[in-house]
């Protein structure tokens, strides 16, 4: 099916998400839709999937307008969308998820069909398990199979490689190639990862600030893509952090700890940290790294073992004591756990630094807006900020004197420019002898910035190595349980 966007505009209140986008998508091809955060990629795709309507303009299917699109109507036209966070029902079983909203089938029939489709793409999904038990990658596979079962001819994959393993990514890419080349379906691959788009796509569309900035055919040139995405001011690649100073003694240690979280426990974890050290945690989500971070922050329970910092035992003490000891936690869920969505920037500063003297607005302008480059008005609420600005606000709110900074996915969802800024500030912290422990799904990021790397698999710590002695490939294998730790 040939799809044509004609002069699409979309406004959310006064915010302009799409401004006059016109383009044509031919069947049997894989399109890459590239752009930084907030460029309007997801909005455009949501209109195609019928989840929201354009403010102006129309979408034609094989040259015909079908009127107002709803999700069921779009599905009927063969358009299926796969979200970055799988849109499924964690409390329901795999086969129930597969059947929901799909064709009328009884249980046996549904399971049979699920396995049939799964075999074709080498996906293995246990039909009777609840979806909560699956990894993000598996939930995505499940959603993909469901859309294929519905006969989707146009598949939109929104940032599908976030949070899935290297092996799962390869399986997914193979499936996408198969779907486009052998079966003539249109695939739209929405991403901000250049390498993946270059590897997979036959055509790349770049959006910038709600407009179509470019439409490219292979061979692709990375620098050209970067220019189109960000304008010409930015460059690719990350700088490594400061060198670790030798002969400093560890100030914090975790001894044979059993950490207990909401869903699982991590047993027998031991670790010691030196001042100024940067430790990267690699592992698929739910394998223990988030538990380690939260336990060191005093947010989850330590059932056995000890956390010792400067001679003091911290385990079992309330969170406030951890903070007093100089530990600061930096959550991945910025709006949910880190900020107060409806409070303004000034109010955030007043809360974070209650004893600060002087005019809070001036302090904010000085600290936040100039040093941390937060692009926002002092009285704007945190909710209205872009992801990058929210992250910089969080960074600006970290107290001056801290010993240990624990970060969950410090650059998740940020574009390259914003990510570089975050690391710039973190490196500065490090030079002042603050230690960092961070988790990330981006192995390159871990490799680039860490002095030491810990790998988690199957809810155990499987490797603890200096960063120069482990490669990205090896991390990937360890995370997938394909190799034993040295």
């Amino acid at each position, binding site marked *: 099916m040939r799809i044509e966007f004609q002069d699409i505009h979309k406004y*959310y209140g006064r915010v302009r998400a799409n401004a006059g986008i016109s383009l044509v998508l031919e069947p049997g091809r894989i399109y890459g839709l590239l752009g930084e955060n907030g460029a309007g990629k997801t*909005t455009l795709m*949501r209109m195609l*999937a019928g*989840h*929201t309507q354009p403010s102006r303009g129309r979408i034609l299917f094989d040259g015909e307008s079908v009127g107002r699109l*709803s*999700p*069921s*109507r779009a*599905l009927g036209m063969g358009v299926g*969308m796969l*979200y970055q966070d799988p*849109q*499924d*029902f*964690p*409390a*329901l079983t795999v086969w*129930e998820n597969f*059947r*929901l*909203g*799909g064709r*009328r089938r009884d249980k046996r029939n549904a399971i049979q069909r699920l396995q049939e489709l799964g075999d074709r793409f080498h996906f293995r999904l246990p039909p009777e398990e609840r979806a909560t038990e699956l990894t993000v990658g598996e939930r995505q596979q499940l959603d993909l199979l469901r859309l294929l079962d519905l006969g989707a001819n146009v598949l939109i994959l929104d940032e599908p490689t976030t949070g899935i393993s290297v092996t799962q990514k390869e399986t997914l890419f193979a499936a996408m190639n198969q779907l486009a080349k052998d079966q003539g379906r249109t695939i739209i691959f929405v991403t901000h990862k250049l390498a993946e788009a270059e590897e997979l796509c036959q055509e790349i569309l770049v959006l910038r600030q709600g407009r179509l900035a470019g439409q490219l055919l292979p061979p692709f040139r990375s620098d050209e893509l970067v220019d189109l995405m960000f304008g010409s001011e930015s460059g690719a690649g990350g700088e490594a952090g400061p060198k670790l100073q030798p002969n400093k003694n560890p100030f914090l240690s975790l001894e044979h700890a*059993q950490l*207990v979280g909401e869903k699982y*426990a991590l047993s027998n974890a031991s670790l010691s940290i030196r001042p100024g050290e940067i430790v990267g945690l690699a592992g698929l989500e739910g394998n223990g790294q988030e538990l380690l971070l939260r336990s060191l922050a005093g947010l989850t*329970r330590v*059932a056995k073992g000890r956390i010792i910092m400067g001679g003091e035992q911290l385990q079992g003490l309330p969170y406030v004591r951890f903070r007093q000891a100089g530990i600061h936690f930096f959550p991945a869920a910025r709006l949910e756990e880190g900020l107060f969505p409806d409070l303004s920037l000034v109010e955030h500063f007043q809360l974070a630094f209650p004893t600060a003297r002087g005019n809070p607005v001036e302090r904010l302008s000085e600290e936040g807006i100039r040093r941390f480059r937060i692009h926002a008005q002092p009285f704007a609420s945190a909710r209205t900020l872009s992801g990058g600005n929210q992250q910089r606000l969080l960074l600006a709110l970290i107290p001056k004197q801290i010993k240990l900074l624990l970060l969950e996915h410090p650059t998740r969802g940020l574009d390259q420019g914003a990510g570089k800024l975050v690391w710039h500030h973190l490196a500065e912290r490090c030079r002042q002898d603050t230690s960092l422990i961070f988790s990330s799904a981006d192995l390159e990021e871990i490799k680039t910035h860490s002095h030491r790397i810990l790998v988690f698999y199957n809810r155990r710590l499987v490797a603890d190595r200096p960063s120069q002695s482990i490669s990205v490939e090896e991390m990937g294998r360890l995370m997938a349980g394909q190799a034993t730790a040295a």
Partner: protein
Amino acid sequence: MDFLALTLAGILSAGAPIVLATLGETLTERAGVINLSLDGTILLAAMTGFVLALLSGNPWLGLLASTAVGATSAAAVALLGLALARSQLAVGFILTLLCRDLAYFLGHNYARQLGPELPVWSIPGIRDLPFVGPALGYQSPVVYLSLLLTFFLWWWLFSTRAGLELRAVGEQPWAAFTRGIRVQRLRITYTLLGGALVGMAGGAFSLAVKPGWGRPQGAEGAGWIALAIVIFGGWHPLRAALGAYLFAALQVLGIHLQELFPMLPASLFQVAPFPVMILTLLLVNVGTANWFRDLTLRYPGLKKWLNRWQVTAPAALGRDFRPEKEA
């Protein structure tokens, strides 16, 4: 009838309206909507059912009217809480008070009158069973209805496509929306259906279990208990019914114990079921306690047992859903 059969009959009868109300609220909450107006709605429905039965001489017409009142009250929740997206909790609270006062006010002239009751059905076959026959075989139709509905809703929720969609809407409305399910329409439908069952519970009180109208009627508090039992029952029809019968059993037992211990104050036995219910809730939710979690780490077998009993509320319970706002 011997003592045990009599007790069992009493439990089934006293439990019937609570089962109906609990099932109704379970249905509503599974769709992600909280209807807090149960207590008032039950009273208003009880009054309306009784008065209509009295005027028409037909108790069935009364039961139908009760059901309609329940659905109407739920319609107010649907209109304000869903269509206009006001706070479901606030709407429910106000509705409770409004319905209760309305019931006492409108029903004032019909208090303490003798009116028609639903007939007792005797079921051939069942009534001749040994031991349980006398308890199960001669009961009000609302008792049979509550039993049938329990199993019907269980099947409906977990074995039909419509039931799956209902659970989906209460869990992840946005995901349901992207799959082409009409979230708002389903929510309104199940709010009305659930409300109808709650109304029927009112009719079951005034036309069968505690016949007649007055102030107090005797149904006071039943709505609040039903709301608690929905949680105790983990939003599962069978477990909810079990909870409702447990509460009824405590009430019936109280009456018997009162006869055995005449020296203790009577109010003790009337109040006792409520704290016992709270203790039961604690016991059911033991899985969230830290010491119990440590136990499950040591004995993984416990975890399996726990998973079967662990209850989690529908994830989107009480939350408003607007597809345009999610952008």
